[in-house]
């Protein structure tokens, strides 16, 4: 398919790729490469789960660091991107949930269903302890149903605003009463607190429970449209294309909400492959930082540093700002965050060093800044030996804005590319 198209696919379906990774995919037929990306879901994480030791604050830090480590270690970055996508769709925030282990189990669910089945995931989320705590379902009882989960489920997870009424929210809330969490943070159904009465929801009447409500919602065409519009915004373009989103939504519904066919159709769509759409999305803080560490082959002795950078840039995993999640797109870049992104990239470039190399890790550990190293610059194994033109091609989705000195050393080229505004795009 060629180097540029391989770069585009990997930057959209992962966290950014090294020249070697791009070359390997460039040698393949495009559809084969997409099938491979979608065909290797392990369903579980590669790294060991967090240790769950220490105070709650330390456990929370351990949880964030663990996911960052997993994103860096994984051999299937699209699974992590989809796990993050579901985390941002079915949001729960550790701040309110309060239990790192419940958030970890929710994260495992998202990874298991990374490209599984949306309907199955929706039903699992409705009984997920972290979600029950986050949106107050755990406290919702027949006598006084708490509307929070029912409302956000309809507004943000499935139909979207304008496709249901206040009465639908109230009746859905009644149907979910009794779905709670026990003291071991496991899901429990409290029959005596469930409202078993007759309910009218989206024009249908019956003795509905929560699953019935979710089945009705899954039968509504808006649900697939909302999910596909979000996929489009995350993977294809900031500009919605209603016809294409409608086509993808039809594929999602026709396939019984299986995710693989719709993801494949999206990656194969002409809009996704159109060269005009290269560099048309803004990297999220997680993509920017995980991608840069991966690309530079940087040692990561302390993921706490990375997570504090993510927090400052506005995207700390497990801490979405509210139930709507991170809005993404243009909102990632403000006068504040653009300045901060450049600051962090400068730190990384300057930490990426020329010598000496760590004997066991074969990675640079300390030394001079890439930018100032001139011709003496030696890059880490991910970038060493690549000529300047290919480095530019691998690091940037389009021509840089700032001037790069002709015949600059490879190290100086990497530094210039990463500090160019175009590096913020994917």
């Amino acid at each position, binding site marked *: 398919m060629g180097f540029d198209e391989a770069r585009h696919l990997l930057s959209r379906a992962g966290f950014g790729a090294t020249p070697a990774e791009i070359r390997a995919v460039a040698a393949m037929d495009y559809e084969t490469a997409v099938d491979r990306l979608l065909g290797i879901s392990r369903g579980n994480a590669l790294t060991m789960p967090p240790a769950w030791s220490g105070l709650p604050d330390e456990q929370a830090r351990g949880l964030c660091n663990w996911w960052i480590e997993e994103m860096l270690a994984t051999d299937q970055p699209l699974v992590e991107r989809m796990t993050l996508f579901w985390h941002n769709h079915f949001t729960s925030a550790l701040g309110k949930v309060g239990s790192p282990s419940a958030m970890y189990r929710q994260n495992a669910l998202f990874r298991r269903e990374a490209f599984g089945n949306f309907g199955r995931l929706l039903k699992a989320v409705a009984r997920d302890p972290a979600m029950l705590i986050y949106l*107050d379902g755990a406290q919702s009882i027949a006598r006084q149903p708490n509307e929070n989960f029912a409302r956000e489920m309809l507004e943000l997870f499935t139909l979207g*605003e304008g496709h249901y009424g206040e009465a639908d929210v109230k009746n859905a809330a009644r149907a979910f009463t009794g779905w709670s969490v026990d003291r071991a943070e496991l899901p429990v159904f409290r029959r005596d607190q469930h409202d078993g009465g007759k309910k009218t929801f989206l024009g249908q009447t019956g003795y509905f429970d929560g699953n019935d409500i979710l089945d009705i919602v899954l039968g509504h065409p808006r649900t697939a449209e909302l999910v596909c519009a979000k996929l489009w915004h995350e993977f294809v373009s900031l500009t919605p294309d209603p016809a294409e989103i409608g086509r993808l939504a039809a594929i999602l519904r026709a396939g019984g909400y299986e995710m693989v066919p719709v993801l494949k159709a999206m990656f194969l769509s002409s809009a996704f492959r159109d060269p005009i759409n290269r560099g*048309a999305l803004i990297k999220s803080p997680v993509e920017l930082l995980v991608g840069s560490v991966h690309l530079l082959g940087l040692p990561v002795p302390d993921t706490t540093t990375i997570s504090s950078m993510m927090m400052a840039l506005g995207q700390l995993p497990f801490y979405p700002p509210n139930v709507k999640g991170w809005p993404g797109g243009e909102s990632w*870049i403000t*006068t504040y965050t653009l*300045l*901060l992104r450049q600051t962090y990239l400068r730190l990384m470039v300057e930490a990426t060093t020329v010598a000496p190399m760590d004997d066991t890790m074969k990675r640079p550990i300390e030394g001079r800044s890439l930018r100032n190293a001139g011709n003496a610059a030696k890059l880490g194994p991910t970038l060493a030996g690549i000529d300047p033109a290919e480095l530019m091609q691998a690091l940037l989705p389009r021509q840089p804005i700032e001037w790069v000195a002709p015949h600059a050393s490879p190290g100086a080229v990497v530094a210039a590319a990463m500090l160019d*505004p175009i590096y913020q795009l994917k």
Partner: protein
Amino acid sequence: MPRILLLVELKGGNDGLNTVIPYADPLYRELRPDLGVARERVLQLDEHVGLHPKLEPLTDAWKARDFAIMQGVGYPDPSRSHFRSIEIWDTASSSSQILTEGWVARALEHAALPKGAGVDCIVIDTNALPVMGPDLHTVVMQDAETFLGQAQAMTADAPVDDHGNQALRHLLDVRRQIYEAAAGLRDRLQVAPAPARSAGGVGLFGERLDLATRIITGGVPVLAVKIALGGFDTHANQAPTHEALLAVLARGLATFRYNMIAAGRWDDVLVLTYSEFGRRARQNASLGTDHGAAAPLFVLGGRVKGGLHGSYPSLADLQDGDLRHTVDFRDVYSAIARGCWDQSVAFGQLAVQKLDLVAL
């Protein structure tokens, strides 16, 4: 000279009923058997309503008559979605209308903007929507030192063709704003005196108020500064959280007022607190409250006409369990636009109810 508006967003939906309390109404006790504030703790303002005891630091302003309470503010057909409702507030739209430009930008559409600082509005928060508009230069920052240091590290460059790429256009636009803002702000903030009394003791909210103080006393010719205090979405076990938030709000605003008076700038400033909605009149089973509708808001400033304005919504005539609004929030914005920037704006309303909040 235009006045500077300090916007204070209370994120999550502040419980208006426990902020300005209709303590004398027996229905209040009935709706809030556990969450109600005891009559003897309420700071009584008249024979009907009073302030939550944690708002005690604001009683100086109340006595000085530069603290106005606008009661029962909301809008018809209220949305109970956080995102939709704050969008309505931020853009001054009606409930059924989607607008993308902030209300401050709309109010200043026909105003002659002051030149000099390269920045019209400064947001010391993450949500900049109220001051977002194509003609306003808005800068978002978390603290001044970091902002200036980073801006200096960037080099200005020649205009670039964005090839119709929306993401690239946005990126380049943000870069340009940074250069322009940094140039004007740097000199003024470097010489701005520290606040006479620091609000830093009340945490991040206080630190951001202190930065707002420096921006104003340093003479940065801005039209609006926005800060926020989060955590008001109290669905469960509300009382301790809400009390702590009100204490932070009151201590912060009282310190800000003290500093403005000390610097001789209190007459040049208007403070407006607002939230996406109030909360359900009846407490829920989790000792919290769910999303509601109308709520009071605060206006402070040297030229503000202090006291209670408007009328408290009736607790006997609820709409889906929520307080009905007695004043439209766009009428408050119209009064602010007039009082701050001498602009006459209706925000799409056919008839503006003139509110006598600010002495001209």
